[in-house]
């Protein structure tokens, strides 16, 4: 007669049914409440002009209009030495919006995430998170304030188990001190039991409860990405930043991920801001999209708008042939004109050396 249950047995006893919709039934949920962003963008502008003064309210989905935005970024910029990586970046993100940040490789998308989470200190501009300026905060403060992120190159705690990875993220809600931890007091036992239950709840969202005892480093790539999202979510954020969440996933996994991101948004009522190259995901779930190229915003708007925006197409696919020829022609003419002008100038002034030689 064991008075104390085995840890594994305890886990089986945990009732996870109260955690809302089961992962498997999520299809129905989504067809029932159609919050997909398309229709809510009523009066966004035809095209975004980067030089216009700060006025981003129009880009918030209708359902979030009444509330204060979760994130406001004004004229954000950063220089690395002489290089301007990001300049004049403005953004307003609604309370429960799913926003997308796209752009070609090297456009500065991850740099913006790094500035938002204060991995880099921005050179210019201001970030208001939940109404408060994040000036002087570091990465840890940012997370405590309610912003959590995932990384482009997965950063898990490889040697810890899947469950422990989530438990670490629950660190600040785990309520016991070093002495309790050292001596495993009843308070420790109580809290550990509670957070194990909670960790299981989070794992349930992605249907990963079976892998709870595996080392995080041993998981397949897609599962590692999902675990990273769970870990970020477990810090109870108000804004979730996802850096290429679908990278390395196959199409069916990507579709599942889309559903899960929506489910996360709905269940936790948080905002999601994501970087992604997979256009099916971005166009499928994002309510507002920002397009970045060479560190500058080239377009903003709702998905259909972005898809047909000539500037975006140009940034991704290059210029059309006719336009390219036209520009080449123009460039050629410019150079010729410059040369002609130079020749004329040198002839007019008469270089002294040449003149001397001629004289001899």
């Amino acid at each position, binding site marked *: 007669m*064991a008075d104390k249950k*085995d840890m594994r*047995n305890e886990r089986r006893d945990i009732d996870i049914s109260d955690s809302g919709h089961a992962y498997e039934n999520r299809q129905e949920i989504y067809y029932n409440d159609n919050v997909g962003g398309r229709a809510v963008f009523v009066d966004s502008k035809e095209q975004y002009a980067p030089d216009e003064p700060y006025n981003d309210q129009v880009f918030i989905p209708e359902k979030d209009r009444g509330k204060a935005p979760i994130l406001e970024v004004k004229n954000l910029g950063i220089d690395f030495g002489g290089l301007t990586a990001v300049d004049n970046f403005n953004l307003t993100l609604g309370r429960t919006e799913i926003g997308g940040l796209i752009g070609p490789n090297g456009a500065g998308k991850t740099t913006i995430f790094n500035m938002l989470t204060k991995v880099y200190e921005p050179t210019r501009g201001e970030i208001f998170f939940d109404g408060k300026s994040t000036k002087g905060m570091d990465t840890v403060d940012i997370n405590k304030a309610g912003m*959590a992120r995932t990384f482009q190159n997965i950063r898990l*705690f490889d040697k810890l188990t899947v469950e422990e990875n989530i438990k670490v993220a629950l660190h600040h809600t785990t309520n*016991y001190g*070093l002495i309790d*931890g050292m001596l495993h007091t009843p308070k420790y036992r109580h809290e550990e039991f509670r957070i194990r239950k909670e960790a299981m709840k989070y794992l349930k969202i992605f249907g990963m409860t079976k892998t709870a005892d595996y080392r995080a480093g041993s998981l397949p790539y897609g599962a590692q990405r999902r675990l990273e999202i769970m870990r970020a979510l477990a810090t109870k954020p108000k804004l979730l930043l996802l850096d290429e969440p679908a990278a390395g996933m196959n199409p069916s996994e990507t579709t599942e991920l889309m559903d899960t991101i929506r489910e996360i948004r709905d269940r936790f009522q948080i905002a999601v801001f994501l970087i992604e190259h997979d256009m099916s995901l971005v166009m499928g779930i994002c309510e507002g999209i920002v397009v970045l190229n060479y560190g500058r915003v080239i377009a903003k708007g709702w998905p259909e708008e972005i898809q047909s925006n000539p500037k975006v197409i140009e940034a991704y696919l290059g210029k059309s042939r006719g336009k390219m020829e036209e520009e080449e022609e123009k460039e050629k003419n410019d150079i010729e004109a410059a040369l002609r002008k130079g020749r004329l100038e040198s002839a007019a002034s008469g270089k002294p050396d040449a003149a001397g030689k001629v004289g001899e």
Partner: protein
Amino acid sequence: MAERILKNISSRGLKNALKGNDYRKEATISYAILIVGFILLQAGAATGLIGHNLQGQFVPICVYCSLAVSLNLVVGISGELSLGHAGFMAVGAFSGILVSRIIGPSLAFEPAVVLISMLFGALMAAAAGFVIGIPILGLRGDYLAIVTLAFGEIIRNLMNVLYFGLDNGRLRFAFNHSIEGIENADRIITGAIGATGTKTMATFTWGLLLCLFTVFVVLNIKNSKQGRAIMSIRDNRIAGESIGLDVRKYKLMAFVVSAALAGMAGCLFGLNYSTLVPVKFNFNTSVLILVFVVLGGVGNIWGGIIAAALLTVLPEAFRQFADYRMLTYAVVLILVMICTYNPTLKARITGIWSKIKPFKKQSESKGKGKNKKGRKGAA
């Protein structure tokens, strides 16, 4: 602690105790090794199988086991290389001796004296660890190792010029030879000569208790909120920061707890000898402890215990070959390094191991089957 193990064993059987998660398995193995080792050595000493020389090594063996475990907290769990562990040991040893000399005469009950001395030693070593840790824990990797080495040496050199004495019940201390104030005093610590006239109160039982306590604390931390934070910072610092973990705080925590445990072990070490010189706590000792940790497997608690015990006993047992000691050491270390980082060799060894123990597998699968049945029954 012993009760817990017995409970584990009696309630679910040893096999089940070993089969739980990594933490429970590690704890059970570590406690079992300590207790079995203690019983074997005691029996050996009682029957006269173990000579006087080796019996004198019982307390140092325990101390080194404890040190290997506490250094594992920094090297294995926190993932930082520390080369100043002997420094904290010295702080604990001398402050502990000081306390034992001050309270010893007035307190007749010896175990209480030992306990108080050890606690004070731990406290002082923790304070030293805290003071040193604050400036240096911003450093990483090799730089941290070098600075800890330097601090270890600084502590030892401070001990070299420190004089403590009792003058009519009043504690006096001085640096270097300006000892006018304590000329007539009853000297406790005399610079480079060290602590003399210590009443040797350390026993093998105290050694066992020290080891058990160290293992208990380190394993508990490893399996707590704090330990998880420390390990996750080791695995990925940036990700740790991104989920709101204060990197410096948890690095410092590992460092200070490790220092405190080292101080405790150092105190017992000091109470084992009537004369203790500060040179004992030089760089070589720090490296020796690190060797225990590496040899036992970084992060492996019971591996460190075995390595520490063996490497303390063997030189004593082969005293006649003392000249070749450092040579053998080097060769053994190189071999261990080659073996542990050689997957082919590892696979071969595990292959041989499984051939030697075919019955082990059978019994395990039997156990699993039973367990499943049990679960079904419960459901």
